[in-house]
């Protein structure tokens, strides 16, 4: 029992969906528990074992001073630290605050904003500590999660392809909806991993997995313009669930008449 590697799951600003992916492994969960010691996973257990942990899964983004300190503690206790999902990897949907004044948002949502303590920005985990692997997606794919856990515990590189969603459409035999139906699609610049679900449902990809390794966002934006998509809408597709993803952030700036940050 005690020689099994210890796994911890940590939550920061998030919806809980990515850690739920672990409980959604209905067929694998009990088998998994035979090989690893689920030592710190409050959503599933009230028993908490102290670190250090072989593997920490981190969900959520950093939005408070307290969390900024807590992620340092998590890092110190973890041999491997893996971020799971768009919040932890690119700030999440809540990173839309980074493009506005957070005080204005507080005034909109809370009657007594003075009770709220928050940072100006929502930032990815990698802005604060060294991250050993970033698993993309809003939400992550549970098979990819199992692969990452398996790989890290066996000291090998996770087998997660960095190519675009287009490859997944080809693999599953979905005709390109941009070509055949004229539907704007973020697939060409978006990291694969979901299985190209949206195009198979006759819907354009909306980039919940963030940018693929070498995205040509400029080219895609001009294709979208050609399909009649308004500038403001092009800006919004790049500035949504992975707004702090550097390639998407850069492209969104171009549609807002904002100076290029050059990052």
């Amino acid at each position: 029992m005690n020689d099994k590697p210890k796994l911890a799951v940590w939550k920061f600003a998030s919806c809980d969906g990515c850690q739920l992916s672990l409980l959604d492994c209905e067929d694998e969960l009990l088998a998994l528990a035979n090989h690893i010691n689920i030592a710190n996973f409050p959503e599933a257990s009230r028993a908490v074992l102290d670190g250090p942990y072989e593997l920490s899964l981190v969900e959520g983004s950093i939005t408070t001073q307290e969390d900024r300190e807590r992620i340092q503690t998590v890092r110190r206790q973890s041999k491997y630290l893996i971020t799971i999902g768009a919040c932890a990897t690119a700030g999440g949907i809540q990173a839309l605050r980074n493009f506005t004044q957070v005080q204005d948002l507080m005034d909109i949502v809370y009657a007594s904003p003075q009770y709220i303590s928050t940072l100006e920005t929502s930032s990815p985990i990698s802005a604060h500590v060294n991250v050993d692997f970033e698993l993309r997606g809003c939400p992550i794919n549970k098979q990819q999660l199992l692969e990452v856990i398996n790989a890290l515990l066996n000291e090998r590189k996770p087998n997660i392809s960095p190519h675009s969603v287009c490859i997944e459409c080809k693999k599953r035999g979905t005709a390109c909806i941009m070509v055949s139906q004229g539907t704007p699609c973020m697939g060409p610049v978006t990291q694969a991993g979901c299985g190209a679900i949206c195009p198979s449902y006759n819907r354009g990809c909306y980039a919940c997995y963030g940018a693929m390794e070498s995205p040509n966002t400029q080219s895609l934006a001009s294709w979208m313009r050609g399909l009649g998509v308004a500038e403001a809408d092009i800006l919004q597709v790049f500035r949504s669930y992975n707004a702090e993803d550097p390639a998407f952030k850069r492209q969104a700036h171009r549609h807002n008449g904002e100076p290029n940050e050059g990052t």
Partner: protein
Amino acid sequence: MKGHSADKNNNSRTIKVDYLARVEGEGALFLKIRDNLLEEVKLKIFEPPRFFEGLLRGRQFTQAADITSRICGICPVAYQMSAIHAMENACGVQVEGTLRELRRLFYCGEWISSHALHIYMLHAPDFLGYDSAIAMAKDFPDIVERGLELKKIGNDIMKLMGGREIHPINARVGGFYKVPSSQELATLRQKLTHAHDLALKTVKWTATLKFPEFSQDYTFVALRPPDEYPMNEGRVTSNKGLDIDVSEFENHFEEQHIAHSNALHSVMQPGNRSYHVGPMARYALNYDRLPDDIKQAAQAAGLGPVCNNPFKSIIVRAIEVVYAVTEALRIIDDYSQPKQVAVNVKPRAATGFSTTEAPRGLLYHRYSIDNQGLIKDANIIPPTSQNQKMIEDDLSRFVQSCLKLPDNEIQYLSEQAIRNYDPCISCATHFLKLNIDRQ
């Protein structure tokens, strides 16, 4: 749970739970006991705020369903349905027929999955004395596996109807992007027939658990549609005489911001009263809408037409799983594939309202949009904000009745009493620490 501590000086005690487990999100509990009297109960929600209502401003009305589903990974369908219905309400569109039925099928998937998760993985370990379902599985493998199997079938519905279980992609204002084929539903049907058996076993099994004696005269609030058990629509009603259209919701319920919480507390006016939403409220207000065989199953499990013991919510949830499976089967049997996957919805400057029944209770959305479909203003009241005051009230009464127990037992029972509500702190903002201060 880690973080528990007890200080005894004079006649006072302090017990802390810094991080409540087996709930979704981050919360804590603080109890103050003086001279054997419970003086103060605080359910603290410290999950960081994410400002969704602010972030929605300036986005297209068609994006609200996808954006708000990110409030909660456990009940994304509820967010999508409330957002979509509110937008259709603003635009003066009512989606009927098969598309309406398919939305209901989609929701059944979430009810089955979310309830099975809560019954087996989050709540049952309290009754049987385990820290987690994984620990419970060592002694009761068949029970835990049954729960996982049932949950998976709920997820299968969401996967077919939504493309994936968490943050599905197929629902949109006006309908869907794609509707299932009869063949796809036939495959699902086989699984649901099996799920029906699992769900009935779940009811029987939950009825064998040991329940603390604790009944309250609750104000239950739930939707009541004209002729069905509530999911996507209906009037907002209570067992104390409330019966309003959803557009009047904010005249009767008010969100208040209190210092110990990042979530807004919702109270009923007049008088800042607490009220109870969720399975027990739906059941009490719509018992007559359940098919006879389900009423019989409830009766056999010891439930009357109203259940006032929150610890027995686990049985009511199991009854709702049977209902959701039965309803899904009915929808599949009546299905013929519609020609249109969605109706056209043209934006107009207006305000739209919707409440739907998330697994853990009423979820209210209100949006104002302009002629171009841009969101001007949004208000979202999730179920856990509504139950938060009710949970504190339950704790005040319940803990008072067991003050003679040692702190660790009070803590255990308090956590269980909170889990009765299947609180979703990510929704309410975020979740739980326990602090007992005894003097």
